[in-house]
């Protein structure tokens, strides 16, 4: 990754550079529209053909008091001319819309990186709120970076003057001015943004024109100011990628689309029961707009009603789906047990966040793995699938629908706050290439000698799905232990033992129906396997790639089917001398692997609410080869310059 500041050594006439990748962080007050700016910059980056990954970070408060440190909202994007899998370790460019944004983010900036700051916001009052005694723009404290400070507020007011907006409204256009400057810096086309603004403000053309004027003014500033200083135009070459149609997608969008596709492939209407919770609500918001695909959405009175209504819908013959985050998943636990006991299909999406309890609502963690695999009363196994990236969440959601309907079982799909909110380019798949898995309901009795046998299992241990409304197949289901085949109440010792074994065997058997575990980078055996699951994919992949370039014999294995684990998993791990498991928790998957395969899996843990930096994993890998021990207790030290910033 080249730093743009490297270009500074060259004569001023050399204004164009072409680094491989650049990390830009936009930071401002939560009312400054930074997420929107970042989102639109992402789109223009995608349209320019760069690969990218983003990291949106916003405060838990809806509108934290203006100008405060904890009210800072940031958006980081890493884009480049080769494959990008993380949002980047440290930014090359920081756009700081006020002192608080500067204070909470500048330490993350690479030495020699560029700060763009709006001097219009560096008033005494705002400096006080950010706990600066003197203005950092003037006191020399930013000496190790390049600083470009000018009055963006005044320039914006000037640009939108002809439209007669009030001062407050006019200042709201600041983010578009800044975006215009960023577009100039990275040699981007303004047209898609202009079109987007026209659509967004279709009902208020004056606002559209004002924002467009601000965007153009920012762009023109870069173009004409010919700053002798650090600002320069950079061109990032497009990534050579697979041909086809692309769009950007967030994990929440991908899950929503995957669920719709999954229900279509099962040839079932979908019922989605949800209750608002961060960061899972986006899925409910999305599905509300997809009702033409046979989707019914139900905003329930609580998390429990959300899952219970979904189970009710599954009982009545639809694909029941519910979604939440850790605390809500905890509330759903008893109902999951009922779905396991009655053997009804159900998809449960857990967009994990930091825990326990309310924990870190807007930050990310992978600490619900035990909850997913083990977290219910009784022996209550259910399959668990984990998405590795926003785009991967699409396929994972389809897979969850397939397993749920084909095996009559609840399935949990794990994503996290990072996957849910982050976006990446996505090669739009062709639906005709998807393998359908149509559901067959039982319509005639499966027992020629008498009444229907709702719990008669097939060779995979799967019972039939019988919809109420079907003639002559009336039967009762419930949470009490039941007799083999008939499902009549029976809690005799032999029956409970047999049914417990049958439920476990059914779920264990799913291992044979999922793809064998592959090695996504490196050899099938060797000295070290770095094993991950979920959103650690990006940093692990880059770290393993860098380590391999240094000549280390290390491979990356990334697990989608967390439970049951693929049938070849034990043999695969046995082919490596050592197994390293980086996780954003205290070592949950490490424990599962140790338990299942008696393998000496070594943990690398991070529980600061931040994703791994590539360097952190690289360092841990290196310690296996150079004999230098890694971090004590396998825990990564807190990095307070990374997003999300713990101070914010």
């Amino acid at each position, binding site marked *: 990754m080249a730093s743009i500041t490297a270009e500074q050594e060259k004569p001023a006439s050399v204004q164009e550079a072409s680094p491989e990748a650049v990390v830009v962080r936009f930071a401002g007050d939560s009312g400054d529209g930074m997420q929107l700016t970042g989102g639109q910059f992402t789109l223009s980056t995608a349209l320019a053909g760069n690969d990218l990954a983003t990291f949106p970070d916003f405060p838990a408060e809806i509108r934290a008091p203006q100008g405060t440190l904890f009210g800072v909202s940031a958006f980081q994007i890493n884009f480049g001319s080769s494959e990008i899998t993380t949002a980047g370790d440290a930014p090359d460019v920081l756009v700081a819309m006020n002192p608080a944004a500067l204070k909470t983010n500048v330490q993350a900036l690479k030495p020699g990186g560029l700060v763009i700051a709006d001097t219009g916001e560096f008033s005494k009052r705002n400096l006080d709120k950010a706990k600066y005694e003197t203005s950092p723009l003037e006191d020399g404290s930013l000496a190790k970076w390049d600083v470009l400070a000018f009055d963006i507020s005044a320039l914006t007011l000037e640009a939108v003057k002809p439209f007669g907006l009030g001062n407050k409204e006019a200042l709201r256009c600041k983010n578009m001015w800044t975006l215009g400057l960023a577009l100039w810096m990275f040699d981007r086309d303004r047209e898609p943004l202009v079109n987007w603004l026209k659509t967004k403000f279709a009902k208020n053309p004056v606002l559209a024109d004002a924002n467009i004027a601000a965007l153009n003014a920012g762009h023109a500033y870069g173009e004409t100011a010919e700053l002798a200083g650090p600002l320069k135009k950079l061109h990032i070459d497009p990534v050579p990628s697979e041909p086809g149609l692309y769009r950007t997608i967030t994990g929440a969008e991908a899950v929503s689309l995957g669920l719709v596709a999954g229900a279509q492939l099962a040839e079932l209407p979908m019922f989605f029961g949800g209750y608002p919770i961060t960061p899972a609500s986006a899925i409910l918001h999305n599905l509300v707009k997809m009702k033409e695909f046979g989707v019914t959405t139900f905003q329930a009175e609580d998390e429990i009603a959300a899952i219970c209504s979904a189970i009710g819908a599954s009982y009545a013959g639809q694909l029941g789906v519910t979604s939440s985050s850790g605390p809500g998943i905890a509330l759903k636990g008893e109902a999951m047990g009922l779905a396991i006991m009655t053997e009804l299909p159900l998809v449960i999406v857990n967009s994990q966040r930091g825990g326990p309890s309310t924990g870190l609502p807007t930050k990310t963690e992978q600490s619900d793995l035990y909850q997913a695999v083990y977290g219910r009363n009784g022996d209550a196994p259910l399959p668990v699938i984990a998405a590795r990236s926003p785009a991967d969440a699409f396929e994972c959601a389809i897979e969850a629908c397939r397993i749920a309907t084909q095996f009559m079982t609840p399935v949990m799909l794990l994503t996290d706050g990072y996957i849910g909110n982050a976006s990446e380019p996505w090669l739009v798949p062709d*639906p005709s290439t998807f393998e359908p898995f149509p559901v067959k309901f039982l319509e005639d009795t499966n027992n020629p000698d008498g009444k229907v046998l709702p719990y008669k299992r097939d060779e995979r241990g799967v019972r039939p799905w019988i919809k109420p409304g079907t003639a002559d197949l009336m039967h009762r289901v419930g*949470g009490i232990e039941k007799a083999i085949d008939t499902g009549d109440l029976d809690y005799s010792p032999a029956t409970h033992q047999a049914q417990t074994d049958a439920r476990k065997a059914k779920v264990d058997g799913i291992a044979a129906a999922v793809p064998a575990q592959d090695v996504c980078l490196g050899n099938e055996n060797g000295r070290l396997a770095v094993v991950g699951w979920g959103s650690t994919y990006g940093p692990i992949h880059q770290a393993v790639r860098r380590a391999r370039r240094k000549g280390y014999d290390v491979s990356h294995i990334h697990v989608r089917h967390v439970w049951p684990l693929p049938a070849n998993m034990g043999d695969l791990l046995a082919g490596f001398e050592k197994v390293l498991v980086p996780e954003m928790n205290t070592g949950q998957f490490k424990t599962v692997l140790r338990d299942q395969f008696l393998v000496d899996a070594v943990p690398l843990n991070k529980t600061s609410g931040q994703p791994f930096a590539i360097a952190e994993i690289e360092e841990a890998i290196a310690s296996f080869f150079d004999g230098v021990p890694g971090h004590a207790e396998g825990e990564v030290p807190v990095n307070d310059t990374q997003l999300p910033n713990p101070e914010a």
Partner: protein
Amino acid sequence: MNDMTPIQTTLKDWESDQEVRWCPGCGDYAILKAVQRTLPMIGADPKNTVFVSGIGCSSRFPYYVESYGFHTIHGRAPAFATGIKLANPELDVWLVTGDGDGMSIGGNHTMHVLRRNLDCQIMLFNNEIYGLTKGQYSPTSRVGTSSPTSPVGSVDRPALPCAFALGSGARFVARGYDVSKDLPEVLKAAHAHKGAAFIEIFQNCIVYNKDRFDDFTAKGVAAENQIWCTDGEPLLFAKGTKGLSLDHDTLTLKVVDVVDGDWQAADVAVHNVKNRGLAHMLVEMPFGPFPMALGVIYDDPRPTFEGEVVAERAKLIEGKTANLGKLLSKGQTWTVEEKDAAHGLMD
């Protein structure tokens, strides 16, 4: 209820092959029979009938009815019923719950199923005690109820299920009791109501709260202490010798004597099932001089939840076709041509 073609059945057709396992003499037996008597009367079709229950003595009910049945988890039956009914509005859904299940652990869901007005019948068996867990006082137990968890008598005030239902926005509220010969008529009216129909059924727990309702159900006092509400009829009881009249000064009900059947002279109020204010007063009547109001107390239909959901969906999808390919490629897209991809995939 739903508008299906009536089906000819008999009581026997509604008996499942499962052995009924309630305590001998439990009021649940009588309620089960009343339901099995009602179902043929209303032309119900076993294949389209679903009984949904939570947990408790009452919640074993679905196992004993020859229809579809779902014995779910404690307090959550209304949520399951909501999913079932939204998935298939043609199904005729009956909820079976109790005072612990429906008013305590599941009070929240009872409230929401009523305010949403899901078309279903909700039978709340009120025995004012936790039976299945062996006799602890319940949210409807009267103050002073002795139980394993209240050895010197319970101190918390009981909830009034029908008042709770009205407060939650219920559009149908009725009362009956286990051995009442009129219970099938009440259930019939509940089924005829399109929307959530709430029926509180007083049920005698002979083991833990025996004869709790004797003050208005015992032979000698029944006539004196019960008032059966009939739409358009005067609110008379005690064989027509007493009536309920509105005290115009306090805006409350009072008991008046009726001489020679001349209820008009005594200013006895006429029952109107659409009068919500009257319903509130009837369900709140304390004991003392007042009788227990039974029968259909309130019945004023409004559009059902599932009907509104279906209509809203129709509106949202009007003119839209379900094209998955189009959905996936929504928003701003870009195309990478074959020539741009000449470098092939990366390492």
